[in-house]
């Protein structure tokens, strides 16, 4: 029980550090990585929490996280990031 919780804390720390890096990133593509990050690290944290807290229904939330990573990523890439010319690095 304690091991899973300790690993959950470690993964949360990883997630936060990576998020700071991603939010600072110079190009919009860096920011899109946040979707990917939550799809993997977020659902891993939820899986570990489900084990540590003894709540199997949190697995469904992890499922939604993984599903949402795909949808938000596609929405990011296809809709919002079209007119982002001035912020991009030059060729």
């Amino acid at each position, binding site marked *: 029980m304690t091991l899973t919780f300790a690993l959950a804390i470690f993964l949360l720390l990883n997630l936060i550090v990576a998020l700071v890096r991603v939010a600072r990133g110079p190009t919009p593509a860096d920011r899109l990585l946040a979707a990917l990050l939550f799809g993997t690290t977020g659902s891993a944290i939820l899986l570990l929490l489900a084990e540590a807290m003894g709540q199997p229904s*949190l697995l469904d939330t992890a499922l939604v996280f993984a599903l949402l990573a795909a949808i938000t990523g596609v929405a990011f890439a296809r809709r919002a990031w079209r007119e982002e010319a001035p912020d991009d690095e030059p060729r």
Partner: protein
Amino acid sequence: MSATLAFDLLLIVALVWSAARALTVADLFRGVVLLIVFGLLMALAWARLGAPDIALAEAAIGAGLTGALLLDAVGHLRAKREPGA
């Protein structure tokens, strides 16, 4: 007990940081991305509070749907307006 406390404090710091940054960054697109991140962190907080049903709703509605709406609005604003105004 102290392990759970560390997890909670870390999560709360991340929540407050992302909320404050979402309102203060210069670029609106970045602000919306940070709000989506905030919503997903809120879903983790609901999971921690023992409310998986709210966590589900927050992840799907609070982060996904709101994020899509706001991103659409930002794209609309960008297309509508010349840069710098």
